[in-house]
């Protein structure tokens, strides 16, 4: 668990982060959103002390982050930045091995971990282990960046606009990968983004920042239905808040008992997509069916619409 307590950063007269308190649950993803200059990156960088706070403190699993030298702290925290920041003179394998080397793992353990991560990220070790970063595509570089951050099995992963440089298709894939990996390793992720869709898709909680202050940090649905500040509803978007709310619920969660002769949808599909499918096909209900063919129930248009209101 990460506890941010009354954290502030001032540069001279300018206050960049102003008394932020925030709790990040273990094994969860928290997305910090805000306009540029809202202090969201600074807040993130104070967690691994790339920026030293002016006041306040950060506890990770109850331990003050100032209890050890900053560079030792950072070896235990994964860090991914926009534009990946891979070492251009080192191979993919060497890049991934960076933190394990710093921690003094033996070569066998490092080699095994690098191979495991390459496989997790769908990069064939035979082809990519010895490649240099510039020989990879943008999406591959980004994956190596995440693999490098996870190499030493950190409990916490900090990501600063990690997918900002990717095109929409690769970006969606990278987001899915992140969700998979987060579930697989149980890593606690704090992610900074200015993309609300990304925040809602990835974050189990979303923290909204403005002018250095934390306005609200809660589940995405709560941000939509009970915004703490007009700025929160402006940022989350008033025009399509109903659709956003629908995108947070899956067909599996909302399915009601009953039969339907409408189109078949998977339980993992979001209600937003189901509604779109119903609008498109002209049917008034959809069948929710598992991959193995088990019928989980049905979704009528009325039932879906009811889910799009607070």
């Amino acid at each position, binding site marked *: 668990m990460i506890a941010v307590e009354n954290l502030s950063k001032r540069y001279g007269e300018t206050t960049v982060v102003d008394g932020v308190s925030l709790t990040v649950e273990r094994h969860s993803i928290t997305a910090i959103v805000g306009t540029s200059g809202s202090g969201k990156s600074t807040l993130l960088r104070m967690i*691994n002390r*790339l920026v030293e706070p002016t006041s306040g403190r950060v506890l990770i699993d109850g331990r003050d982050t100032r209890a050890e030298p900053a*560079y*030792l*702290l*950072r*070896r*235990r925290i994964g*860090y991914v*930045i*926009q*534009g*990946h*920041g*891979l*070492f*251009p*003179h080192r*191979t993919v394998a060497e890049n991934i091995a*960076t*933190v394990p080397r*710093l921690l003094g793992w033996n070569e066998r353990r490092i080699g095994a971990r690098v191979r495991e991560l390459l496989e997790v990220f769908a990069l064939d070790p035979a*082809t990519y282990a*010895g*490649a*240099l970063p510039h*020989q990879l595509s943008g999406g591959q570089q980004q994956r190596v*960046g995440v693999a*490098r*951050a996870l190499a030493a099995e950190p409990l916490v992963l900090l990501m600063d606009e990690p997918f900002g440089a990717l095109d929409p298709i690769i970006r969606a894939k990278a987001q899915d990968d992140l969700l998979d990996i987060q579930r697989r390793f149980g890593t606690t992720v704090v992610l900074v983004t200015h993309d609300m869709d990304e925040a809602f898709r990835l974050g189990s909680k979303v923290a909204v920042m403005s002018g250095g202050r934390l306005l609200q940090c809660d589940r995405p649905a709560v941000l939509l239905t009970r915004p703490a500040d007009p700025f929160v509803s402006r940022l989350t978007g008033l025009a399509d808040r109903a659709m956003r709310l629908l995108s947070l619920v899956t067909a599996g969660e909302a399915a009601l008992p009953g039969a339907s002769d409408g189109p078949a949808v998977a339980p993992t599909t979001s209600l937003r997509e189901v509604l779109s499918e119903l609008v498109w096909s002209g049917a008034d209900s959809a069948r929710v069916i598992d991959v193995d063919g088990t019928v989980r129930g049905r979704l009528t248009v009325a039932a879906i619409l009811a889910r799009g209101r607070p």
Partner: protein
Amino acid sequence: MPRAATVVRLAALALLVAFLTKPQSFAPLFAPLTQYGAPPIYDQGNLLQLALAQLGTVCLAAAASSLVAVGLGILVTRPSGAQFLPLSRTLVNIGQTFPPVAVLAVAVPLVGFGEKPTLIALFAYGLLPIFENTLVGLRTCPPAVLEAASGMGMSARQRLLSVELPLATPLILEGIRLSLVINVGTATIGSTVAAKGLGEVIIAGLLSSNTAFILQGGLLTGLMAILLYDGLAALERRLLRPVTLD
């Protein structure tokens, strides 16, 4: 293209070696440049030994300038040393703008005649290209890479040694190469204060109005400079060739 370049390189090297080891075989070539039966080939010393002595002086001076210039470059790019940048730059610039001949004139009364004053002059003269290239190399490391290095938990020293310096190496080596080549030519003036070198041949030619001596001293020095530059560049390419997949 690379094949032709290799042929030219080998030919130049062969010419240099032949001239230094068997200078007398080139006598007919230089004879038309002499008057009143003066010797066409320098005969007051061994050309090979002179060339090696000059090369030795230059390399020693370059090693010293590299050490100091790279050290200064590292110092002034650290947050704690940034305040020394203007001072370092001034010192290094003075080293370059103060004529080496004048350095010799100042150094001789202090350290005596011979190799020492030449070393001092070449050391000062060779600092600038290495220092400036080190600065550019260290300053142009991509910010995202440096941020990642710190974010991964590298200490300042680890970041310098395993990220910044390797990335700056090509530029630093280029600076050293440039400095070496400039100084191979400049080193000939050392002979005015009795340092061993091919300058001796040129000076002897000037004193006795022997154009053949002047020309062969100059040609040998020039050949040495070109081959050195080229050879180091080739070595660099080989050493720094990025690891690639087959």
